[in-house]
């Protein structure tokens, strides 16, 4: 099967600092998405836009 993605030619091992920064970004992104979903849900409930909501 044809692989269309670019393959890295010169892979450079990330430094521990870079990996640490990436982990922090990923955690922040996950937290942000979770908060966003909760806020949308609560907001829709508060506006009565979810007819079957409690």
């Amino acid at each position, binding site marked *: 099967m044809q692989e269309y993605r670019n393959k890295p030619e010169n892979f*450079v*091992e*990330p*430094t521990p*600092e*870079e*990996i640490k*920064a*990436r982990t*922090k*970004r990923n955690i*922040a992104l996950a937290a942000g998405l979770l908060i*966003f979903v909760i*806020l*949308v849900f*609560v*907001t*829709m409930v*508060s*506006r009565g*836009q979810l007819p079957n909501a409690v």
Partner: protein
Amino acid sequence: MSIDTHIVADEPVALAASGLSLAGPRDFFQLMKPRVMSLVIFTAIIGLLVAPGSLPLYNSIMAIFCIAVGAGASGALNMWYDADIDAQMTRTKKRPLPRGIMAPRTALTFGFLLSVVSVWMLGLATNYVAAGLLAFTIFFYVVIYTMWLKRRTPQNIVIGGAPGALPPMIGYAAVTGTVTLDSTILFLIIFIWTPPHFWALALYKLSDYGRVGIPMMPNVAGPKSTRNQMFAYSLALAAVCAAPVFTGLGGPVYAFGALLLNLGFVALTFKVWRSRAGEKDEVQPESLYEVQKGDRDARNLFAFSILYLFAMFALIGVDHLLRGSL
């Protein structure tokens, strides 16, 4: 209208060989200009507080949150577009993009996503008039001010002051769903306050703006003309601040406090008007509040003007609460 062709998004950035950036959540928060955001939050809360009618607590918190995020988003988009000049100015060279720890495209995506989310969420939590005003604020700040006016005209911050003045109007509209005379007065207080506030800074950071080719009023019209205009604006501001007393937005507590604050503002601007602030063109100190001899009056006005705006809006809020409890 023609927009600058300068685009920073595709320029290479000095990321590490691995291609991973060192930017952490704190750097993304920095993109949102937290210091500006604090003023936006405060004025929006006052707009929301003094508006006739009420909004449930959760929706009020959401409204303030969305306005803050929208302001942060426009800050991030501003930093994306202005990364080239930020790198050359002492006041801004430590921002995440000039430091090279983040790709410009990342800042663009971050700002764009937050813009869309904040406007949509504000519409969902309150009403679409407030959401429309927030969208207009972001558009005006990024396109009209940052891309169009900032590098072209010394009136940049006069017209560009509008988005900074809109948050209390958005807070007000979040409750009422409309724009009224009172919310326009709240807008005008910040709008008229902006030129003397920024020009005070520009007077003692003159070479910084001149070096990067930003046509601030002191560079183009000269320090003397700028000081004249600042004094005229301070008088206009005092007149606008009297308006709430006549419309009922402000009561006696407001009237007394506003009188004192405006006397202070006019007096400090008068001192700047009589000074020779901005008339030296030497290398200027790095810190925001460090000044050369002669520019002290401009620095004092700049510092006071921040306190002034917080105090004015606090007065409007306190006066409203006091009258409500009587």
